[in-house]
């Protein structure tokens, strides 16, 4: 029972981690909660689904297609919803409101065009592996591995590549970076397209594992919690946060109560924040200044 619970927790945690990374990246650069991230994940799931349906593409090809699609959508959202505010030096609150507006608009756009029906991906990696008494899904192994690979690549990119270094510099101080001659618009387009790539990946995994439907974006509430636990602004933190959240939820569900699971999960979050306000790996306030 213990092993199965742990496996279930890590499996769900992997998906939370994938959702949290894209969200955390935007937060660390622009310092606001990108509420539109969930809806981009949802669109990724739909793009992947239709790629499978219309072009009879294999699921992995559909995932690549979805990732490219969501990268483009994320950049468009940035240009239309955030850039005007950025140029006017708006406070982060306005960015969040704009993000919510974009999310509601895109969600309802899906309702009006595609409809509210649920869709299911063609069967992919549905088998499981037996480990003693426990089952571990192949899809979950796939999701975790891909998440690990993607996040490692991202971390390398941010530390070694010139563009990556520029992005980290922008997280420190975007204004000064602008005066040094870096094209901020292009830089942010890169940041959002990376966030979009992760969103597309997460969306397709969610779609395969569960279902595709217009309101699936709101599952990213869990991603926000995961990012907070791990420490907003820290990429390894969001991965750790995601897995911790998944495991805590799983153990609470099995050993305490299924109905009141979220009560315990959020209490855990509150207690954690009381002792470590910036999360597990978050930068302390002194550094940010």
């Amino acid at each position, binding site marked *: *029972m213990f092993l*199965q*619970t742990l496996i*279930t927790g890590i*499996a*769900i945690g992997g998906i939370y981690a994938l959702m949290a990374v894209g969200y955390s990246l935007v937060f660390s650069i622009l310092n606001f909660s990108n509420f539109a991230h969930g809806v981009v994940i949802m669109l990724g799931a739909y793009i992947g689904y239709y790629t499978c349906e219309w072009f009879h593409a294999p699921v992995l090809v559909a995932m690549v297609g979805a990732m490219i699609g969501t990268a483009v959508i994320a950049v468009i959202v940035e240009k239309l919803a955030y850039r005007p505010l950025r140029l006017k030096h708006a406070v982060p609150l306005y960015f969040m409101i704009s993000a919510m507006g974009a999310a509601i608009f895109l969600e309802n756009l899906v*309702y009006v065009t595609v*409809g*509210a*029906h*649920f869709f*299911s991906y063609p*069967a992919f990696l*549905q088998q*499981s592996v037996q480990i003693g008494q426990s*089952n571990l*899904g192949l899809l979950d192994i796939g999701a975790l591995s891909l998440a690990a690979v993607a996040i490692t690549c991202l971390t390398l990119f941010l530390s070694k590549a010139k563009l990556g270094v520029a992005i980290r510099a922008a997280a420190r101080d975007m204004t000064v970076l602008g005066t040094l001659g870096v094209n901020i618009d292009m830089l942010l387009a890169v940041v959002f397209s990376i966030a979009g790539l992760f969103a597309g990946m997460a969306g397709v995994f*969610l779609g395969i*594992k*569960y*279902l595709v*439907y*217009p*309101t*699936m974006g*709101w*599952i990213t509430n869990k991603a926000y919690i995961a990012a907070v636990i791990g420490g907003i602004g820290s990429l390894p933190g969001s991965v750790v946060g995601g897995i911790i959240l998944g495991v805590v*939820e*799983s153990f609470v*569900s*099995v050993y305490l109560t*299924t*109905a009141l*699971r*979220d009560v315990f999960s959020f209490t855990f979050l509150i207690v954690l924040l009381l002792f470590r306000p910036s999360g597990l790996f978050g930068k302390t306030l002194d550094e940010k200044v």
Partner: protein
Amino acid sequence: MKHKCQWGIALFLLVSLIVATGCQQGSDSKTIKIGHAVSLTGDNSVFGQSESTGLKIGVEELNKKGGILGKQVEVVTVDTRGDPAETVNAVRRLVDQEKVIAVLGPSNSGPAMSATPIVTAGKVPLIATAASNPYVTADKQGGIHKYVFRVCFIDTYQGLVDAEFAYDRLKARKAAVLYDVGSDYSQWLAKYFEDAFIKKGGVIVAKEAYRTGELDFRAPLGKIKETNPDLLFLPLTQKDAALAAKQSRDLGIKSTLLGGDNWASPDLLTLAGPAIEGAYFSNSASLDDPRVKGWITTHEKQFSGPIVRNALLVNDALLWLADAMKRANSTDGDKIVAALEATKDLPVMTTDKFTIDPKTHDPLNRPAYFSKIQGGKFVFVEEYAAK
């Protein structure tokens, strides 16, 4: 110049808004306005869309025959999104702004219960279509809500027949239940099943819950697996049931699956795939009934999605309401309520002898219809009346 333009546009918009609202409010005494509160979007949209089209067809046929009380019937549709809070707004619009004579729907128990105070205050009769929780018509002090009625069976009955079917037909002795704490329908149906199953002599080995919106049930299902039940009762929406079925099979749970009337939509099959094969569920109306097969074949093309039980039940409600208004010879709420209460042996769409119990506002003698999922299709098993 710019200022004048801005003021001009603002004034024009204001005037148009007033004119538009004014046009809507004009009480058109040439038509009978009936409100339809239905879940066009949200998790229950498959049922809602089917119900909406079913009602449109029913109203067209009724109007061809002369309408009600010599006037044409006009339907005002509002979207409840399957959400109790949204239903309050939607029904309020029907009662206060549109001034409808009666409301048909909602089809979900939670939203139906939230609509009750509004129709009671507005003295507008409401006929719920597929809402099966007893507290839709009954109030918690032992009385009934005067203005609320329904055409389908209630969950105390559904839980009972599900338990009897599980015990007698499926020979289950150990049952586990997975339900949604966020849904009145799911919570109460789970309880009624549990009570009835224990009374029959069975044992409930596990009762686990999750919250609405949750997609992963592996943790509660893992606990259920440990207890090794013969039967897994899933009083859930078709979407959650599909996920639960897939995940329970992934975890290696071999129990027979049994569900309630919220399973009754073809997308259960596409969403669950082979995992739902061999499962059973109870329904409040049967699409295989020879009485309705002709209607279904004639009108199939007019439905953009699948035809589900709601399309039949809403026509029952419409015919019942039309008959009551004819007998009352009035559009007054109280008179219609009295006529609705006095309905006996009325031929409607799904039955020839629709009788209402004036003490509960629920129909008498509505059997349940059991279906099995076999070969990727719904196969009718039997019409079941409780012992």
